[in-house]
């Protein structure tokens, strides 16, 4: 608030009877309320669609009962412990798959974002549209398309097999026999594909902001292109890297569609367990507890990540 008061035009000369009164007191209240009024719609939205459901879920997670008897809050915190004990493999798997997909997205997305930002010239807008274009079709349809792409008798699997890539991935346990579908690799591929634009867009935004003169200056100081990238471009693109990885990792860790459609029994993620507990077993407390555990784990990891990457201030 202090900044805004300082940029105010000087108020009318203070009345002589109160000479000590500081200048800021006379700023109209209405003006000070403006930022809060502007925030009001957003806050209301958050309360109704985020805070309230969260409270409701928190309550559900400590209830016990059944559909017939009804559910009552009994502060049964043990549900959390039981859920964690029962489903920790799926938690580990979710984080592993989401982490792998995030790294793959970064490796695929960074060169592309770099190209769009620095080398694309007049093709830049077209390329950006192409990155966003998949969003024009439904998430589900796009995921189902991968079942055709990765089909057992399809060209992709045939090529991977001929190049003996499948031998390596089989040995690593990522694929199974002569197929990719219904294996961890298919799920991670689907996740990577589906969340790639969320990586590219923030990367592009922060790369595009970099002043070209910095590159010239680096060149003048005899930095090789590689050194320029390492010492200038990459550090300056860190905000994009951090927000891109977050936008990829967080939704990917809670995803269940890819595991459901492209995976098998041993590739199910936490999202699938939550869905199954909620809809199939009708164990609402366990489903709610699982959601909270996932939220807590992701929140913790993200906090540590942001602190360590030192980009807190840039977010």
């Amino acid at each position, binding site marked *: 608030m202090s*900044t805004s008061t300082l940029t105010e035009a000087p108020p009318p000369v203070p009345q002589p009877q109160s000479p000590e009164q500081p200048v800021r007191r006379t700023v109209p209240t209405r003006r000070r309320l403006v*930022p809060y009024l502007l925030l009001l719609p957003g*806050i209301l939205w958050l309360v109704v669609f985020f*805070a*309230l459901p*969260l*409270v*409701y879920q*928190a*309550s559900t997670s400590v209830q016990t*009962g*059944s*559909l*017939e008897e*009804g*559910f*009552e*809050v009994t502060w049964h915190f043990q549900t959390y412990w039981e859920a964690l004990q029962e489903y920790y493999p*799926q938690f580990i798997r979710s984080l592993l798959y989401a982490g792998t997909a995030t790294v793959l997205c970064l490796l695929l997305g960074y060169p592309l974002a770099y190209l769009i930002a620095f080398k694309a010239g007049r093709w830049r*807008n077209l390329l950006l549209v192409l990155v*966003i274009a998949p*969003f024009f079709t*439904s*998430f*589900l349809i796009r995921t189902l398309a991968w*079942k055709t792409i990765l089909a*057992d*008798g399809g060209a992709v699997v045939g090529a991977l097999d001929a190049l003996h890539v499948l031998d390596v991935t089989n040995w690593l346990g990522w694929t*199974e*026999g002569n*197929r990719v*579908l*219904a294996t961890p690799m298919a799920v991670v591929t689907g996740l990577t594909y589906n969340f790639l634009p969320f990586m590219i*867009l923030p990367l592009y*935004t*922060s790369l*595009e*902001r970099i002043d070209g003169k910095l590159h010239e200056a680096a060149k003048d100081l005899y930095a090789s292109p590689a050194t320029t990238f390492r010492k200038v471009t990459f550090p300056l693109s860190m*905000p994009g890297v951090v927000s891109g990885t977050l936008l990829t990792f967080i*939704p990917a860790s809670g995803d269940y*569609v890819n595991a459901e*459609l492209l*995976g*098998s*029994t*041993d*590739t*199910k993620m936490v999202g*699938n*367990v939550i*869905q*199954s*507990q909620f*809809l*199939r*077993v009708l*164990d*609402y407390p366990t489903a709610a507890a699982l959601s909270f555990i996932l939220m807590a784990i992701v929140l913790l990891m993200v906090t540590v990540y942001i602190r360590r990457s030192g980009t807190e*201030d840039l*977010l």
Partner: protein
Amino acid sequence: MEQYEPEPYGPLSRAQLAATRRSLARSQGRGLTRRSMLRASGVGALTVGGFAALSACGIPPAKRSGDAGAADDHSAEEKRLNFSNWTQYIDISDDEKHRPSLEAFTKRSGIKVKYTEDINDNVEFFGKIQPQLAAGQDTGRDLICVTDWLAARMIRLGWAQKLDPANLPHAYANLSPQFRAPDWDPGRAYTYPWTGISTVIAYNAKATGGREITSVSQLLDDPALKGRVAFLSEMRDTVGMTLLDMGKDPATVTDDDFGAAVARLQKAVDRRQIRRFTGNDYTSDLNKGDIAACLAWAGDLIQLQVDNPDIRFAIPDAGYMTSTDNLLVPAQARHKANAEKLIDYYYEPPIAAQLAAYINYVCPVAGVREELAKIDDSLASNTLILPDEAMAAKSNAFRSLATEEETAYEEKFAALIGA
């Protein structure tokens, strides 16, 4: 899953991208930063949503008294009906603009039907209507079509309205004996079947190298099928077929039987014999040959066979499972009498034949054979649509389960399918 379409980034215009950039660059050093706001609202949310709020929530018990769900019937003054059904589950004209049987019903009765295809999956649909029913509210639907175990659950919870037999003369007279007395709705007080569903074995002859697959044992044990076998994610179908193969009767299943069947399936999962547990999506995999053999719903197969002659089916000697999709009037629905009129209409043999000719599932209406033969002779002789006596003798149904049993079984089955 149909609703799962996160699209937080629409296409961003240049101006929007620029605005995003600005906000990233300038949030520093202001009195009201994003972070301080987040902090403040976080603390606020915690205070507001404190423990008091937590304990105020809860889900009320389902009403269980006999006919508590009955509502005032507005059928006489409101000639309307909201009918929720599965996708592709009613006859439709070639240009996909008309539903002939439904339009004829409106013409005859004057009742306007709002037909919605919003059921894709039993458990998801239940998740959708459960909050309203639990709160004793109208779901906005007068007639829904759900699989028998879900119909049984809704009756058990008191969430279905009792039908008036006086309004159902055709239905009462024409219902096939096979479907007359399920253990969860004896005498059909609450529901009438829309279709019967036979669960059989299907295989892609090209993918099996021309070999016939005729038993669940083969699906579970044949090494040539390793990794190319699918079972259904519908618990009663998958476990029921396995039980039959083990010589047990799904109609009298005990905890031990159930456990043994799941253990047998688990072994096949561990050996990677079973590739996936699927819903309706097995059809495309079977068609492509990614799945060589699987459990399948007969109605789908008739459709698949039209396009792909390699698709075959087999009725195991041990028997097959039959379930039904049932029409029922949910609690608090406003137009029960109208719904009853529609049920009765679809039990008139000519109408039933019209429907069966289009959707190819088992027709639950007796005396439909002649009518169906008028439309297409091959359909009338297809035992998947009109089972003959030999076939009907092999038909089995899963016994209805009590709440605790259902939960325990579903939990075991969920562990089997990985989640």
